[in-house]
């Protein structure tokens, strides 16, 4: 899953990026409003964490601009402004959630998970595909009651496919959601990862869960 952070306090943006990356997310950061707006409009992302008081273009303007441009990515406002009026105007301008500083990182993670679920059919942090269980809160993956050990990247791929279960996901879309903007999209690294998770998830089971759709991409289906 790919998350964009727009936050002008560099040390805060960097530590959130580090924390999210350790949770298996792919993170892009913009340190001012102008870069943030460009990023939000042009980079594919599953979630945007947006500060309000930003140099050059403020967060509220960015939010209104991208919503007007039809970007539907969930936006979580992360800001020092804590009055009810600020929250109301933030949510009314198209934000999906509002978290005030200072915050607990665990709460931020929980809210991110909730927002990421919102766009899929999944409503809890546990996704079931056949006998495959993906727990997004603990990052545990089980099949037939047995734990499957995955690397962070592998987990991120499984989670993304699980959230979009029964949908065909193109290589490009998978790459975009698993790698940040500096990654070379032409690489066939996704095929390598698909092979790895296929080995861990499908090997030894009669029912296959990971499908290859020729010319279109991959799909996780129960």
């Amino acid at each position, binding site marked *: 899953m790919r998350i964009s952070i727009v936050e002008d306090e560099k*040390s805060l943006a960097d530590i959130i990026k580090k924390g999210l990356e350790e949770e298996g997310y792919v993170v892009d950061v913009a340190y001012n409003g102008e870069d943030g707006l460009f990023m939000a409009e042009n980079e594919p992302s599953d979630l945007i964490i947006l500060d309000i*008081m930003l140099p050059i273009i403020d967060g509220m303007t960015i939010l209104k601009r991208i919503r007007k441009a039809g970007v539907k990515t969930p936006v979580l406002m992360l800001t020092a402004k804590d009055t009810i009026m600020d929250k109301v105007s933030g949510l009314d301008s198209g934000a999906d959630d509002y978290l005030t500083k200072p915050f607990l990182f665990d709460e931020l993670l929980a809210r991110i998970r909730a927002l990421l679920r919102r766009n899929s059919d999944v409503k809890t942090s546990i996704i079931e595909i056949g006998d495959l269980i993906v727990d997004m809160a603990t990052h545990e993956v089980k099949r037939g009651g047995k734990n499957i050990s995955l690397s962070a990247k592998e987990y991120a791929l499984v989670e993304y496919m699980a959230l979009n279960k029964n949908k065909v996901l193109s290589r490009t879309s998978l790459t975009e959601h698993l790698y940040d903007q500096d990654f070379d999209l032409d690489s066939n690294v996704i095929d390598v990862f698909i092979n790895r998770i296929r080995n861990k998830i499908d090997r030894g089971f009669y029912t296959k869960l990971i499908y290859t759709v020729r010319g279109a991409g991959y799909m996780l289906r129960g």
Partner: protein
Amino acid sequence: MLSSIKAKIITFYIAILFVILSVLGVLLYLSLSKIVYDAVDSGLLSRAKSLATLVDSDNSKTEFEFSDEIMWEYNSPKPKSFFQIRRLDGFTLEKSASLKDSELPFSGKEPRTYFKTILLNGTPTRLVNFHAPDEIENMSKNSGNGLIIQCAENIQNQLNLLKRYRLILSLSILSIMLISASGGFIISRKALAPVKDISDTVDKISEANLSERINVENVSKELQTLASSFNRTFDSLERSFNRQRQFAADASHELRTPLSVIMSQSEIVLRKERSLEEYKNALTAVMEAARMMSKIVRKLLTIARLGADKVDLKIENINLSGIIRESVNLLRPLAEQKGISINILATEPLVICGDRAALLELFTNLIDNAIKYNVPQGKTNISIKKETGFIVAEIKDTGIGIPEEDLDKVLDRFYQVDKSRSKESGGTGLGLSICNEIAKLHGGRIEIKSKLGEGTIVTIYLKGNGSEAK
């Protein structure tokens, strides 16, 4: 109780009323009792006189010819009237049957016609001593003797009347006072009602609706001054309250970001085992955030202190050129680092009254800005001159300038033109706001003119002879 105006008014009023009514009552009583006694006395006297006419005197012998009709009065079973006739030496010649065994008192020293109230067998009785009248004057001369006719009358009824009158008077005075007191209470309450209105309004004004005021037009004329001074007090209360609230909001807002850094750093780093390097980095970031917080807190406290109405300023005569030179010397190393030249144009020593530390803070802050936001190898010119009523200092730099739309906001607390840039230089957005407060405390102001990319001119106006500096 006496502390209330109402009680004071009523007490005072009742006391006056009591004195007046008491005097009046005493006078009324005295005049009535005089009338009563006069009536009794004249009756007694005329009776004594009529007795005297009945005395038939014959040279050496005195005889009394009293008819039964007359005597009846003195002999009735429940006698009210008495008489006794004595010689001048006090010897009793005759007395009324009503006296029985008792005698009317006589000492012989009484004046010729004499009235007295005595107790006869326990009943109050009025007595008159009457010396034998003129008709028998001759006889008296002859005999060398006169007669003293004593007449007395029971005055129990009259005394009862007076007693009742006294009671009625006291009761009337008491009831008049009670009625007046309640009247006074009502009047004073009515008179003080507008005061109550004002106090009710004042009571209603609290933290939540500090902007409410007493409607001066609805208040009676006498109390308008009170109402408007209340309103003025609330105005200044509201101002200082808002300042405090703004301060608290600013402080909490500005402290949130560094606090988030500290919290996230610690929380994320503690999620799992880290290398020594990572711990070091995290602690450094935490320390920097904490340092930023302490800087903000310190500056906020400076502002709070400057904004308070009573500032602990040490006012003395200060040579402004001296202050500027001192500030420049403090900042010289920073300027040299950026290769910025500072010129001071101060032709004459200009003295103002002010606080040395505050003025030093003002000029260090402004000159620091002129260096920090200057281009490398730039220039900073400082000049001072005298204008009517003011000493005007001007700090001109060849720096990056301030965008026009930000010009009127730079003096606000926490306003930063370029946040990321001022963060790097350790700015809190409070410096100019502090300078503005200091200038205001010295009866002056700060004006800022700027052109983007060309430079900024900061003009500081300080009250000239300074004596009016607060």
